[in-house]
């Protein structure tokens, strides 16, 4: 009996030794995996969605813009304003490193820079259209921290080139297996913290639970912040690549 018990203990130890490293890897994925999973936590590979953007400035009434958007892959996005009426038809297109703006009053497509701000809020064009960070940044796992009450991975993201909107991003992603992004701090080359993004309000939308509110707080203009709230999301619709071309911008809604 003792021999049988001893054999059982040995088998358990061997089994643990075999399994432990594997389960250790599963518990602590590498930085690239965390970032990739976080990139997909809000929107799928391609998506169609509606958004409400609320711009808040100290001592000023809040201003709301509603829009619908489409995303394909990591670097193609199109957003059209649907409200307020005076802005209806204004559209932004991102394809690769290129961003265009359609001005309905002039019926004209104008090229704009990716780093330029989006619609008068605190998000840049790159923030809106590059919801995926894996393409632009090299991630490093820099530890674990509790942020906004959540146990998180802390990732240090370093821009791959100077074209990218921010030189460095510190990114916190939930450790509970959901890989929901929680917070991001954006820094310039000189190390200045430009703004911070808070990602919150996970709830069922478009068939799965996901964060639905993104709040960008300016660190330059005190009290200035902009909220982006997803109203509807459809994951993986069939989208023609030609939707993401300047010609499609001109055609209007």
């Amino acid at each position, binding site marked *: 009996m003792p021999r049988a018990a001893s054999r059982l203990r040995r088998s358990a130890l061997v089994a643990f030794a075999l399994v432990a490293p594997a389960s250790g890897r599963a518990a602590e994925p590498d930085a690239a995996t965390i970032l990739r999973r976080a990139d997909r936590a809000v929107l799928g590979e391609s998506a169609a969605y509606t958004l409400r*953007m609320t*711009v808040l400035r100290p001592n*000023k*009434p809040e*201003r*709301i*813009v509603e829009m619908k958007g489409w995303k394909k892959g990591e670097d193609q996005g199109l957003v059209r*304003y649907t*409200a*307020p*009426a*005076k*802005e*209806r038809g*204004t559209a932004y297109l991102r*394809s*690769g*490193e*290129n*961003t265009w703006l359609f001005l309905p*009053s*002039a*019926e*004209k497509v*104008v*090229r*704009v*820079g*990716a*780093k*330029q*701000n989006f*619609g*008068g*809020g605190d998000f840049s064009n*790159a923030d809106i259209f590059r919801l995926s960070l894996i393409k632009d940044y090299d991630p490093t796992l820099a530890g674990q921290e509790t942020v906004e009450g959540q146990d998180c991975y802390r990732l240090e993201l370093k821009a791959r080139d*100077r*074209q*990218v*909107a921010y030189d460095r991003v510190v990114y916190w992603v939930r450790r509970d297996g959901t890989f929901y992004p929680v917070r991001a701090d954006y820094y310039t080359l000189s190390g200045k913290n430009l703004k911070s993004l808070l990602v919150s309000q996970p709830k069922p939308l478009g068939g799965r639970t996901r964060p639905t509110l993104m709040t960008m707080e300016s660190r330059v203009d005190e009290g200035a912040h902009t909220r982006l709230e997803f109203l509807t999301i459809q994951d993986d619709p069939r989208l*023609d*690549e*030609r*939707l*993401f*071309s*300047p*010609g*499609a911008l001109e*055609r*209007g*809604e």
Partner: protein
Amino acid sequence: MPPRGARSQRRGERILVPVLLLSFLSLTRAVCAQTRQLELGLEGFGYESQTSVLNRENVLGLDDHPGLGRLALGWRETHGGFRAVFRGYVERTWGTEQDETRWVVRQGYAQYWWGEGVGLRVGKQRVAWGSGLAWNPTNRLEPPKNALNTALEQEGALAARLDWAPRPWASLIVVGATTDAAPRDLPVAASADTRRTAALRARFLVKDTDVAFVASGGRNQRTLFGLDLGRDVRGALAVHAEAGLYRGSEILPPRDDTWFLRVVAGALKTRGDDAFALEYFYNGEGYSDAGVAAWLSGLDRAWGAATNPALPPAQQQQALGVYAAGAAIPYAWGLGLRRHYLHASWTRGGATSVWTGALRAVVGLSDGGCALTPGIGYAPRGNLTFNLDAVFLLGPATSEYRLSPVRGALQARVKLLF
């Protein structure tokens, strides 16, 4: 009596409006529109007139403060790939020689897209191509922009346009267009012959650079070859260059065997709610100092003959016609009278702003003249906007803008959207 071209244009509009109204009525009954937007607008433009080389002894018959008032209507409806647009106004002018009430269709077209690949648009429409902000030397299909305020809404041309996008990075546009319209926002009328144009624009995205080739030509239209480029620099600045090469001048006198080049090059930078633009324009057929002197002495001669009592009335009338045609040159089809121009603008405000501000300046580098246009906008609600622009014409007395019969302007616009 309006020129022949104008009569044919108005005939086209007479057909166009009932067709659009019918399609609107049938649409509203037959389908539940996916999106619909109605727009009601009031526009009031007031000018300060002056006698000048282009308005000798107030030959244009302008009061001190001529102007115009407009009631504008806009309608846009989409259903799937179908879209119909109407934009027009009823206008009353005052303080001019022949005050009149008239209606003008700015745009009225129907459009259909088959998926993302092929689109057809028929009717009076803006073409609005070219990367240039204040000047578009590759676009000779539409009436020119108002030289005194390039931000005003432009009138379209009667056209049929076919878009074909075989790939996301390549597209082709073919347009057949006709127009005789001149800028209508001024108290001085400039008439133009009807231009019939066929044009083709092929656009590509090559290594993150927009590249477009343009070819156009037709009746009363110079054959033109154009190149249009645009890209951004480090994500922070958008730069563009647009060039048109054509044979024969558009500005009088006709120089039929000479090739001319027009080039626009500029940059756009936005920072927060601010947008800054700077653009240089080279107008190859523009007058040199000697050309201006010849043009002005030609006007002198024509005016002298028109007011010479020793000449028979028919000859006086003919001379007056020559004078009027020469005096209208800066407002007719050309993009500018001289060779070198600079456009600089600053605008503040975005989708979420209640107040917007703008300051635009077009500086004639050849003569030191300047058209300065500050403007403010106020949007107390998301569907209501007020805009007020002022136009100041500055510079030496002999500069292009100071020769104008208009000394300055105030332009107010109110827009209500449903």
